[in-house]
């Protein structure tokens, strides 16, 4: 965008939109921010810098009805995979600092329970540690596993509830559904609270593919 402004009107006629992905995806801006960096709204996530395969999967899931949020289902209904790939490529390459972590209003016990779940899981209920799939610094793993840092607690708990209820699904094997149905409401609150209060790590990049064996097979890693 800065580049285009720099070129100025001589290169871009005043009545022609910039020929950029940034201009094309301004349909996403009111909820996800002008560059996908997120907004103050608790329920709309940052999308900038998420793994390309993850973004592509979500665009397909919304279009094809595996995720239910009518405004997104509507916006994406008549777009095709090749354009989704362009969008995913664009947003995954936007590197912007995360918003400051939430201050949080949860008790120390809740935060401790959340931290334990993230790091150790809950073996009695077959819940693996979040970090075993979402990366050692919880910034996600290429190509399809998203980071968990830099999101609002309400967004995280709403997504876990959606996985439980089935309004959010992924290609089989739908590992997050299997995990979410094991989580209690208290665990969802705790894990969301802890994640949202963590400061961004020094590198927010998703970890590269192939370095970790995830404990469950996941359809989202085979786009």
């Amino acid at each position, binding site marked *: 965008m800065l580049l285009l402004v720099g070129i100025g009107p001589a290169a871009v006629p005043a009545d022609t939109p910039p020929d950029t992905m940034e201009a094309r995806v301004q*349909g*996403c801006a009111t909820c996800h921010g002008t560059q996908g960096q997120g907004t103050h709204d608790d329920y709309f996530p940052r999308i900038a810098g998420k793994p390309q395969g993850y973004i592509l999967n979500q665009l397909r899931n919304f279009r094809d*009805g595996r995720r239910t949020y*009518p405004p997104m289902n*509507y916006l994406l*209904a008549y777009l095709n995979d090749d354009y989704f790939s362009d969008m995913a490529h664009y947003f995954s390459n936007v590197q912007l600092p995360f918003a400051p972590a939430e201050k949080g209003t949860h008790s120390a016990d809740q935060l401790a329970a959340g931290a334990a779940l993230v790091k150790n899981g809950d073996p009695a209920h077959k819940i693996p540690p979040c970090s075993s799939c979402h990366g050692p610094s919880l910034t996600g793993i290429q190509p399809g596993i998203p980071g968990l840092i830099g999101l609002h607690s309400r967004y995280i708990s709403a997504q876990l509830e959606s996985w439980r209820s089935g309004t959010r699904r992924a290609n089989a094997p739908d590992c997050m559904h299997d995990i979410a149905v094991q989580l209690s409401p208290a665990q969802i609150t705790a894990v969301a609270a802890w994640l949202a209060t963590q400061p961004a790590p020094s590198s927010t990049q998703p970890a590269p593919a192939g370095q970790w064996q995830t404990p469950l097979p996941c359809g989202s890693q085979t786009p």
Partner: protein
Amino acid sequence: MITFRATCAILLGIFALPQWAWSQQPAPFLGSGQSLEETIRRGEYLARVGDCIACHTQRGGEPFAGGFSLPTPFGTLYSPNITPDPDFGIGNWTADDFYNMLHTGRSRSGYFLYPAMPFPAYTRVTRSDSDALFAFLSSLRPLHESNHLNELRFPYNNRALLFGWRALYFREGELKPDPSRGPQWNRGAYLVEGLGHCGTCHTAINALGGSSDDKAYAGGLIPMQNWYAPSLTTNKEAGLGEWPLQDIRDLLKTGISAKGAVYGPMAEVVHNSLQYLTDSDAHDMAVYLKSLPARNESPSNTPGASNVPATQLNAGHAVYTAQCASCHLKSGVGQPPHYPPLAGNPSIEMASAVNPIRMVLNGGFPPQTAGNPRPYGMPPFAQILSDDEIAAVVTYIRVAWGNHGQPVTSIEVNQLRTAALLD
């Protein structure tokens, strides 16, 4: 829609079809000169013109396997599987069965089809085109998907009552060409009136789900969907009267044009159907559409700016400047074709304010098409603007720049917040 017969008083023969259609003999497996492969390819094209996939495919589902739910004022209908599965599809049908269904609106076993299946338009399809469609559908992989029972309320769940509806609104018969018109007009008429079934949405329907001649193509609110299908007549205020042929052709084939972009249900039609039209078919449809006579349509509005309190206009102008002007420009001329003009745009000015309100609430990407492979999206504003703000900005764009629209209220905006976004 059925009604449109009045304009096509003279009934057609074969010359309404394009050369590739009328010069051929019947398909070989039906005893004609076109190879089966050619017939299937032609059938595939015709299935796209008819947009069969729109209703016979669930979102994210297998094409033509049915199961799409269609909410109506009378209950919910579910489309059937039309793949050649012998148990649940049309695997045991013959070309005669298929033609009879399209032509008479009766199922293979004889019961009346609900007119959600646009047989009042498809009855105009020629036998040759019906056979090609059937050959195409029969060439698909059979999908063993069972059909969902309709969920219609009493008394609408009694198909026998359709006898009355048919007597009122259904006129069976292929379209006969009008010899006083050229081949392009006749081809356009065949496409618009037949497989295209444009009147299904663009002619208002009454409480019984029927439509009358004097309203043909004059536009109407699409029940349940809460989008307004605009007039296609030559009416200058609301219709296509002043649209150049090229802009109509562009809109049909690419989803965008110098005059405006498609949105709402029409985005689906362009994405799944009209973008595949041959250039000559798109042209011929435009020729025919431009000839539709003006109807008894909503009277043109007087310029509304004088009716609007200055405070609301100022509020609307403020929202416009902050949220809209970067793309549509202060002058409202837009940056077509990607950012449509709002000044002088009938979609913005027309008597029904449903579409401009919904565009602001819901935003939208034009459909991705070969002619517009990377569309520019408009953001939804429902999430960040209040009812009052949206009412103010929609009022502003309806009366600014000499536009002839009328103001809207925040109550109208609020009611449309809950409108269905997709079926």
